[in-house]
């Protein structure tokens, strides 16, 4: 039970998701013990206004959705909703990463440098390196901030999509 309390205390002070591995290393316990303790903590919080959520690869305390309106009136948060073009670019990057801006352009059929710049500013995408092709274009991928903004635990939690297979450049003779 002490481990549950310790994890509760750490998650309470953390302002970003903390992974089970981080908690296990810090508390010097097995990762499986952390997972079990978090499950116990989730049960303890069942009757409370806060809950433990699995988001962006870790655990974090959040308020329960049913209090959203009330908290919204209290905090008056600014809702910076993404534009349609930003959402399109973000979806393509999320599913095709690592991807270059030219590849995003090809899918959308229009230039994407402005929405990509906005997404970079909001730290929803970040540079992953450079593609080893002529011009060495920058490769982009989604960030942890993206997972957090879309309430996803990992990229595996993305909504499923069936994309037709594409022959990659590498398969060219």
């Amino acid at each position, binding site marked *: 039970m002490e481990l549950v309390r310790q994890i509760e205390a750490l998650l*309470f*002070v*953390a*302002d*970003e998701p903390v992974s089970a591995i981080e908690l296990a290393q810090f508390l010097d316990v097995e990762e499986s013990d952390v997972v079990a303790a978090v499950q116990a903590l989730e049960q303890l919080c069942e009757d409370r206004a806060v809950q433990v*959520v699995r988001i962006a690869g870790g655990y*974090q*305390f*959040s*308020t329960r*959705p049913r*209090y*959203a309106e009330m*908290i919204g009136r209290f*905090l008056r*948060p600014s*809702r910076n*909703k*993404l534009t349609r073009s930003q*959402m*399109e670019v*973000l*979806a*393509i990057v*999320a*599913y095709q990463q690592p991807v270059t801006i*030219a590849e995003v352009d*090809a*899918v*959308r*059929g229009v*230039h994407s*440098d*402005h929405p990509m710049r906005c997404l970079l500013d909001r730290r929803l995408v970040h540079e992953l390196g450079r593609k080893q092709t*002529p*011009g060495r274009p920058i490769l982009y991928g989604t960030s942890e901030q993206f997972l*957090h*903004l*879309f*309430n*996803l635990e990992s990229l595996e939690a*993305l*909504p499923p*999509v*069936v*994309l*037709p297979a*594409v022959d990659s450049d590498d398969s060219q003779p």
Partner: protein
Amino acid sequence: MALALAPETSRWQGPLGLVAPPEIAIQCEAFEGSLGTLIKCVLNQKVDLWDIPLHPICQAYVDYLLERPDEDVDSVSSALLAMAYLVERKAFRLLPLPEFVEEDDALPYDGPGLEYYQPVLLGLEECFEERQRLFFRSADAREEYEIPLELGKVTVSDLGRALEALLEKAVEEPKTVQFGRPRRSLAEQMKIVARCLDGAPRPLDQLVEGEFTRTEILWWFLALLELIRLSAAVVVLGDEGELLFSLAGH
């Protein structure tokens, strides 16, 4: 290309939060209108900068700034940012694009189009809406905690009064402000203040010599406060209640 200064009109606040540059009228084959409109059109990808020479526009803009030294610095810096954006876009446009360079080798794109992502976009929007109903601890709590300074009997009000006394002695600011006038960094100003503090503890009016403007003395005092914050300087109350400043260790 013809350039002319149009009469002063209201400043345009663009989508990037940029304050409009002056109403420089541009007339060339590819575009006819104000500089603000040009930036708007470039932002919306309605104009190809390839066809618009930027050099005369930049020159006219710089001339405009030089003729108005009293211009609001915030507006000027924002407008310069807008000009820098234009130059950046132009430079980007001048770069050879792979599809033009390797036109013969370019393969038509036959991968999944945007239509395949439509269900995903709906799913992501649902995730986004769901996430908007969750609230987390604010990241503000992570700001570095700074231990309050121990100033003994000296209060913030004492420091404020000392600054006010200095400000009363300040001479008038020069009426013309030159753009690009070099200003010392805070680190450089701190070195100067530290030199003044060398020696026995002294009151402010003995530390600052010669004439100074309000801006100069504010900058000087800010450097002094930073030295105190970093424990490189100390302030104590004198026998008659005056503030005495010196380097730490004196």
